[in-house]
């Protein structure tokens, strides 16, 4: 049998590249507002001094920051990356390319539709869009189109996989395609909550077709999606850590089986955990909050499998590079490669993000940090570092792969990654500490008539970290743009897909069967959410009007 050596066509590369262009454009705008928030905390308020009347308020900026970064940068990058993983992994073209193109266009139309009301200050409801704050209907429609567009791209993946499976009945699903599929399936289960909230409640309500809403019920719908959303961001980063980073570092994946097992557990356990975001909400019995708390703790298990397997793969690489002793292999990793560096530093800060996550998930300890600036401090270690810095690292090899051009100014890329790491360490640590001191989140602290003396130094560090991150972000954008106009490479870039230490064909068969895991995920969801949803829908009071609080 001859090996299948299918390579992506120029058209496929262009399609993936378009996802990345929109992703980078989004973060280059959304990322600009993060430092404005941070500097506002430090007392340097650009909103009232310089940005008004183009950008009207702190909350408009915060909405732009959250929506463009957490929803658009991630979703566009991820759908593009998953497209690559499916085609390259299965070594075949998408079965219905046009279907994925429809999904892509729907996402673009959704982005524009949502962006217009935000830019007109008609939707400053933050990326969580909690009712009874009421945005312009176009915002909700736009967000819905982005999500549905990503679903359609996912359906294109499923149909492609089915065709591949028919042609390859006995072969284990190639790891990168397998992981891409689980990520997409998890996303589609996770977004059912937001779909219910948007389609049944928010869109009819914003169009005047419904008189009122029950905010409590909508918060439950939202957090059905809101927490697994984090895993939609994280799983593609994990894919890179499992399936690319070992090869980039000079080694092999420690265990194909562990990698697959952890992804099945993420599918099973990522979704039924939303009430841990609602620990202080009325209307959800504490017993159910405790159930979700325990399920959240269970996610610790696949997370630790991931940490172990990725570090063991890196140890394998470091030793292959000549590393000796218990920890001597760490110094032998290719720290001067910006793509590797970005992922290593993302992983280091993610260790601390993970620890913060355990604290957030603890039912009682959560009360110390709930709704304080600790929380954005935490998720800037997860989505803004573990995820974003890893995505940047992926782009550092993928843009040359897609364009056939070399990475412009590799040294700038290395500096960019270090700046991100330093800026985020300063920013995030300060946000955590000032949160422990009681500083609220989602609040323009710079406008407070007075603040406790002990916050001041930390708020300065928040601003300083923000400035360093801003420099890093635009250095990243410069490297990306510069790479489009630089010299052609003499040889094509080969995607650095890692081999496993053992042949994947020896991976147990039960790790390549979908049915038990899908059934398990469904049962767990019914147990974790079913009784509460029946109760909350049955007792809902659809009486709350909309409020414009900005």
């Amino acid at each position: 049998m001859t090996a299948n050596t299918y390579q992506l066509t120029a058209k496929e590369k262009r399609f993936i590249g378009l996802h990345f262009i929109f992703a980078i454009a989004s973060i280059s705008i959304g990322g600009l507002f993060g430092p404005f928030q941070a500097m506002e905390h430090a007392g340097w308020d650009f909103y009232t001094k310089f940005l008004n009347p183009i950008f009207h308020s702190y909350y408009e900026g915060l909405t732009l920051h959250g929506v463009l970064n957490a929803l658009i940068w991630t979703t566009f990058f991820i759908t593009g990356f998953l497209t690559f993983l499916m085609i390259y992994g299965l070594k075949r073209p998408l079965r219905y390319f046009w279907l994925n193109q429809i999904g892509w266009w729907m996402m673009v139309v959704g982005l524009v539709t949502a962006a217009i009301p935000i830019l007109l200050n008609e939707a400053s409801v933050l990326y969580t869009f909690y009712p009874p704050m009421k945005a312009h209907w176009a915002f909700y429609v736009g967000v819905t189109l982005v999500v549905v567009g990503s679903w359609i791209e996912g359906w294109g993946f499923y149909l492609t996989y089915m065709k591949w499976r028919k042609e390859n009945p006995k072969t284990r699903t190639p790891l990168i395609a397998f992981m891409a599929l689980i990520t997409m399936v998890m996303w589609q289960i996770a977004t059912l909550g937001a779909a219910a909230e948007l389609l049944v409640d928010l869109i009819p309500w914003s169009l005047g077709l419904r008189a009122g809403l029950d905010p409590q019920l909508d918060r439950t719908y939202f957090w059905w999606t809101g927490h697994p959303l984090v895993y939609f961001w994280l799983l593609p980063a994990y894919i890179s850590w499992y399936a690319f980073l070992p090869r980039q570092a000079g080694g092999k994946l420690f265990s194909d089986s562990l990698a697959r097992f952890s992804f099945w557990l993420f599918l099973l356990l990522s979704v039924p955990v939303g009430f841990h975001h609602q620990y202080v909400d009325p209307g959800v019995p504490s017993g159910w909050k405790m159930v979700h708390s325990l399920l959240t703790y269970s996610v610790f298990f696949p997370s630790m499998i991931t940490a172990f397997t990725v570090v063991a793969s890196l140890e394998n690489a470091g030793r292959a590079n000549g590393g000796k002793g218990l920890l001597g292999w760490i110094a032998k990793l290719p720290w001067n490669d910006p793509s590797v560096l970005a992922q290593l530093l993302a992983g280091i800060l993610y260790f601390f993000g993970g620890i913060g996550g355990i604290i957030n998930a603890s039912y009682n300890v959560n009360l110390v940090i709930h709704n304080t600036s600790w929380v954005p401090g935490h998720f800037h270690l997860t989505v803004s570092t573990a995820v974003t810095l890893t995505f940047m690292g992926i782009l550092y090899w993928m843009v040359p792969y897609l364009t056939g051009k070399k990475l412009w100014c590799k040294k700038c890329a290395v500096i960019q990654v270090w700046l991100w790491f330093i800026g985020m360490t300063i920013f995030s640590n300060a946000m955590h500490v000032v949160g422990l001191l009681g500083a609220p989140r989602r609040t323009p602290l710079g406008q407070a008539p007075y603040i406790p003396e002990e916050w001041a130094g930390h708020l300065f560090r928040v601003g300083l970290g923000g400035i360093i991150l801003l420099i890093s972000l635009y250095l990243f954008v410069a490297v990306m743009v510069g790479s489009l106009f630089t010299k052609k490479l003499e040889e094509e870039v080969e995607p650095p897909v890692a081999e496993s230490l053992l042949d994947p064909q020896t991976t147990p068969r039960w790790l390549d069967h979908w049915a038990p895991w899908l059934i398990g995920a469904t049962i767990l969801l019914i147990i974790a959410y079913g009784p509460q949803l029946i109760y909350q829908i049955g007792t809902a009071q659809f009486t709350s009007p909309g409020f414009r609080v900005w």
Partner: protein
Amino acid sequence: MSNEKLPDNGNDNFEHPKGTAVVMAIFMLIIIILWGSVYLIMLSRGVDFYG
């Protein structure tokens, strides 16, 4: 698809990931310290017990 079961890139002397075990142990220790410190902050703010 190759039937190869052993690594062939110079890694075939790969040992048990002892360094990884050390890293994970350090990680667990940091978890305990940081979680415990926030737990102590909670206790320092006063705790009401039912009953």
